[in-house]
């Protein structure tokens, strides 16, 4: 059976820094998912450059099938040498999970990966290989559904050093905390956020180091189909709805748009029940239809969805408060929540018809921007590391 992953990460910058010295890359190859976390020496611009170079080199070379030796050699030869410290240095962890369930973990000088299976910690054995004077730990194993793997930068274990905690937050204690959160949370996003927020608290909201937590959970695939906008040519309505309704049994479906919902209702012969419940004054109420998880208004809702997704992908601002916003029962929050937490791949079915009634300069919002919104939506979801396809009608 094919393995699917849910990946997410969260970073805090060292207090006062604009750039983060940790960098996470999330990539997909044809047969695997890769998550890379690099932590550049120092902080600010230098660290950011080191970490970015390291993660990008690793990512690009791995994607093209290079061996670990080649990758490490390239990094050692490429990283600029710091004028002050006279070394070029960035730690890294690489986690590659193949669709077959095979997994490969490479660690260099980061705190060890936390591996949780069935609520229990799985120890990662020592298997050190020396490449270019660097001691690198390799671990090959098999994942199964439900597993969670957490990569971290050392900002986590340094949390609270000398202040709230004498020696920082010990790895064992972080692991125990992650274990507890593993049972309480469903998505990678919430697990990564929980651990990272705890670090921030231990730092008393002034992190002394860049802190990053990247999480991968092994899950069933969760395809989401989202339809928005009526087809340009009315004759394509049926084709559009048929394709939107196709897919495996576990597919979740969202319709964003009143006219689109009316079309789906007509083609499928299922009644549409429109609510009057304005949960949020700015977002029109939702509607209900059998077999469709979410039915919402179109562009105003999508506009808000994109704002929420952008807040999520621009890591610095994802906090517990964000998840409270996500848990609200308005159309936009519910769509965003599904895309963030309950989706591994997104298929967009987009109609290109222009609603003549929207070409009204008297309206305070430009409603004729659906295709622009769809592009923004696609980018945001791709930035989360999830594949997106778009079909226009």
């Amino acid at each position, binding site marked *: 059976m094919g393995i699917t992953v849910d990946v997410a990460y969260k970073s805090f910058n060292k207090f006062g820094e604009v750039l983060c010295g940790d960098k996470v890359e999330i990539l997909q190859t044809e047969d695997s998912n890769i998550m890379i976390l690099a932590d550049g020496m120092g902080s600010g611009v230098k660290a950011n450059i080191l970490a970015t170079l390291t993660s990008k080199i690793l990512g690009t070379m791995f994607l093209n099938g290079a061996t670990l030796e080649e990758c490490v050699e390239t990094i050692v030869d490429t990283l600029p040498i710091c004028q002050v410290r006279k070394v070029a240095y960035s730690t890294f962890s690489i986690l590659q999970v193949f669709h077959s369930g095979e997994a490969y973990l490479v660690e260099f000088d980061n705190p060890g990966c936390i591996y949780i299976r069935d609520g229990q910690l799985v120890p990662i054995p020592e298997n050190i290989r020396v490449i270019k004077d660097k001691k690198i730990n390799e671990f090959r194993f098999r994942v199964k559904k439900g597993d969670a793997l957490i990569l971290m930068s050392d900002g986590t274990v340094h949390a609270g050093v000398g202040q709230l905690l004498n020696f920082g937050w010990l790895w064992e204690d972080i692991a125990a905390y992650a274990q507890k959160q593993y049972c309480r949370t469903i998505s990678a996003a919430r697990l990564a956020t929980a651990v990272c927020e705890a670090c921030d608290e231990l730092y008393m909201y002034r992190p002394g180091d860049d802190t990053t937590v990247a999480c991968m959970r092994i899950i069933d695939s969760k395809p989401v189909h989202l339809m928005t906008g009526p087809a340009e040519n009315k004759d394509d309505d049926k084709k559009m709805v048929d394709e939107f309704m196709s897919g495996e049994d576990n597919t979740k479906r969202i319709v964003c748009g*009143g*006219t689109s*919902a*009316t079309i789906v209702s007509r083609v499928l012969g299922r009644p*549409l029940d*429109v*609510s*009057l419940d*304005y949960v949020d*004054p700015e977002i*029109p*109420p939702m*509607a209900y239809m059998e077999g469709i998880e979410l039915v919402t*208004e*179109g*562009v*105003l809702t999508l506009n808000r969805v994109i704002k929420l997704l952008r807040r999520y992908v621009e890591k610095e601002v994802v906090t517990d408060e964000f998840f409270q916003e996500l848990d609200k029962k308005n159309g936009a929050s519910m769509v965003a929540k599904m895309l963030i937490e309950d989706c591994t791949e997104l298929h967009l079915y987009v109609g290109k018809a222009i*609603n*003549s*009634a*929207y070409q*009204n300069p008297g*309206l*305070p*919002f430009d*409603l004729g921007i659906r295709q622009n919104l769809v592009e923004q939506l696609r980018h945001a979801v791709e930035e989360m590391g999830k594949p997106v396809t778009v079909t226009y009608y």
Partner: protein
Amino acid sequence: MRVTICIGSACHLKGSREVISQMQDLVAQNGLSDKVDLNGAFCSGNCVKEGVCVTVDGELYSVKPEETKGFFEKEILGRM
């Protein structure tokens, strides 16, 4: 009596929320909750009109938020 109020994008911007909350209040104040069935509706393709699309037993009207009370007295109370 079945009354639908459009909550599509265009009508929303023209004040659906205001029309809905006024109508809900008016229906309750006049003790008509059993007789008037308020429903939401999506775009019926009549958004070129100036107000929010409202139907009363299938008949289409265009209602601006400030006209809600007058509309209610004429078209809903008036038919009782």
